[in-house]
């Protein structure tokens, strides 16, 4: 095989570090047309494409890549949209290196096709042209309530609307989008794109009611009384975990959720034009090694921090963040301190954090996740001076809604127990999907769950007895 076929993978053009660390505009610029076509031509059009198996929603990857290679962009994007209704988002935030691209045969001896870049290329092409609403079916007079407007809820609602159902999304915050709007920063996922996807779902006839905290403003029973017959719970994993070590309530210590919500949802990076403040000192420490930690660290840099370090208890190999994002963070100057964990925070008399005592770790035996368990090295304590700390060690299920639904089965970690194929919970007519079922996962897996649940809800309306668990 010619080596340009094996190794021709393009690099994503991106803005130079010196320019991008001072603003919040998007970092990767997208492939130019000729480069995208050339890359698409590199695809072997495998008879049994392994990439498709790596895709959680089974996009016909060789199919859309072939159309792209022929310059048939409209057909190509339509092919993606058969399976994935949010390609502009997925093309930017999906961990392709762990999914489709990991399975691509070219990756065995050379470089996998840049499937994610191509997906983004097509989605951007379509966005610039203006997305057309598909013809809508005649309305079916049955009401579905979707709780939460993250990728799971948006997808479920969109799919149901396309089948003609009357769908309302109830969202606790003042803006729809879930993590896409409050968590993932502008420089990685421009909010205009999220808004456009939300508008698309609305154009399908979906109503979105913001400022509606289900469990508080309305209960599930209230919605039932209002005529909703089926429910999809997509409330995400929004409860921030803290370290529970001394000094954690000192001023200057944020959960990643608070830090990112202030910056993204409330636009604190535009303070004082926007009213919500955020405080970033000279030295910032971010605790954690996932996408959330990377986003927080890169946000801190853009907000003016002079030094940002990322403190992670295992090694870089175990970091759950996307490799690309770790690379970008390091390029921008984020300093990764691995095999280290904080044990307490030190503050001054006004209650502000000034230091973080850490202990070094070494990797021991593998734990349940298969990763080697970090164990502290006695006597290795040291202090890192800090002005601001962001704790990004994970999120759990918010009990606010769940505790108000009588009898809903939860697992021991507090997530909803739902059938992986249909999203059906133990309660009749109640479905769930996304992070509230799986724990913090990915945008695409949340979307996949939303889509499967939409199909199941359709089946529930047509053949309610086909759910053995509710008989």
């Amino acid at each position, binding site marked *: 095989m010619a080596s340009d076929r094996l190794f021709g993978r393009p690099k994503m053009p991106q803005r130079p570090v010196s320019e991008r660390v001072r603003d919040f505009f998007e970092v990767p610029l997208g492939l130019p047309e000729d480069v995208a076509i050339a890359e698409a031509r590199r695809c072997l059009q495998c008879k049994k494409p392994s990439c498709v198996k790596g895709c959680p929603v089974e996009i016909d990857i060789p199919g859309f890549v072939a159309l792209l290679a022929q310059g048939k962009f409209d057909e190509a994007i339509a092919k993606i949209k058969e399976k994935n209704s949010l390609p502009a988002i997925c093309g930017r935030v999906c961990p392709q290196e762990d999914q489709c691209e990991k399975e691509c045969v070219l990756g065995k001896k050379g470089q996998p096709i840049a499937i994610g870049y191509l997906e983004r290329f097509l989605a951007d092409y379509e966005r610039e042209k203006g997305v057309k609403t598909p013809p809508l079916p005649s309305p079916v007079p049955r009401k579905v309530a979707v709780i939460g407007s993250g990728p799971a809820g948006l997808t479920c609602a969109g799919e149901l609307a396309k089948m003609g159902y009357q769908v309302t999304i109830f969202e*606790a915050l*003042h803006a729809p989008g879930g993590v896409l709007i409050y968590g993932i920063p502008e420089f990685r996922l421009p909010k205009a794109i999220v808004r456009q996807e939300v508008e698309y779902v609305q154009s399908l006839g979906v109503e979105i009611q913001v400022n509606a905290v289900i469990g*508080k*403003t309305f209960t599930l029973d209230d919605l039932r009384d209002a005529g909703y017959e089926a429910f999809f719970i997509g409330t995400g994993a929004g*409860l921030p975990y*803290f370290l529970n070590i001394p000094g954690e309530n000192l001023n200057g210590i944020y959960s990643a*959720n608070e830090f990112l919500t202030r910056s993204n949802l409330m636009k604190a990076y535009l303070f*004082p034009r926007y009213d919500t*403040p955020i405080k970033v000192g000279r030295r910032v420490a971010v605790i954690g090694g996932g996408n959330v930690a990377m986003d927080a660290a890169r946000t801190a840099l853009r907000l003016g921090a002079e030094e940002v370090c990322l403190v992670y208890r295992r090694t870089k190999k175990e970091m759950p963040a996307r490799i690309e994002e770790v690379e970008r963070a390091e390029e921008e100057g984020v300093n990764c301190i691995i095999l280290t964990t904080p044990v307490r925070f030190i503050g001054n008399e006004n209650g502000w954090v000034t230091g973080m005592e850490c202990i070094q770790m070494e990797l021991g035996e593998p734990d349940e996740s298969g990763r080697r368990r970090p164990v502290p090295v006695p006597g290795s304590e040291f202090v890192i001076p800090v002005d601001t700390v962001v704790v990004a060690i994970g999120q759990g299920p918010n009990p606010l809604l769940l505790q108000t639904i009588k009898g809903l089965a939860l697992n021991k970690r507090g997530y909803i127990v739902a059938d992986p194929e249909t999203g059906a919970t133990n309660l009749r007519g109640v479905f769930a999907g996304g992070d509230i079922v799986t724990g913090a996962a990915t945008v695409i897996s949340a979307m996949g769950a939303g889509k499967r649940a939409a199909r199941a809800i359709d089946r529930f309306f047509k053949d309610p007895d086909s759910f053995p668990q509710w008989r």
Partner: protein
Amino acid sequence: MAKILKKEVLTPQMKLMVVEAPWVAKKAKPGQFVILRVNEEGERIPLTIADFDPLLGTVTIIFQEVGKTTMMLGELNEGDAILDFVGPLGREIEEKYFGHVVCVGGGVGIAPTYPKAKALKACGNRVTSIIGARTASLLFWEDKMRAVSDVLYVTTDDGTYGEKGFVTHVLGRILRSEKVDLVVAVGPVMMMKMVSLLAKDHGVPVLVSLNPIMVDGTGMCGCCRVTVDGQCRFTCVDGPVFDGWKVDFDELLKRQRTYLEEERRALDLYLAEKAKEEVTHGF
């Protein structure tokens, strides 16, 4: 959007608004709060539900103009709408018979004290209330508080009305001379701290309503965390009402000061803008 049906100026810096929010009014319980946002660039701020009417679908808020957001809110008029108005949030107080309850409201805290006193009175409790302010012109709702209390005491720091001194003076006197089963206190953190210490000295339980800085109000950010009995709790979902004996008030005082500089800056810019507008639109 929530329409403002009625606006009243209670004191120069304190305003009352009756807001059309049927879904909030229907679910509201004493002790709960709402979060609102005045405009697209605005901050989300929590305000206590001072009164509510499920039949009329209205919620009453009372706020003190202490910074930019509360000032912008104060400039809205009847017929205007508040962009975002979400609730009811937080837990309600336990509505049951305790016996003799003393309700203490300081400053703007009189407003959130009212629905609690009203509910406790309705449960058959003997309610003694103490309301206080720095000076006479800052007092409000004396009549409403009187209507839901068996006895009402009024104090002003400067003695311009009622008894001269702090609410804690009156509370101390009552605790020394009468049997009290519960104290409920809402007001500045320092006041709640003093009330809690005093009641604890007399072995009387205290419920306080905490007011840390908040963002979402649904347990998603952890900004509102407080230490109660050595445990980290989120005020917006676990509170805002907590056992006053166990709250770390000093930590709360410090946390409330997190954004002092930024708040100052936002306010100065806002006042400068307003002054400019007055010059261009004025005489």
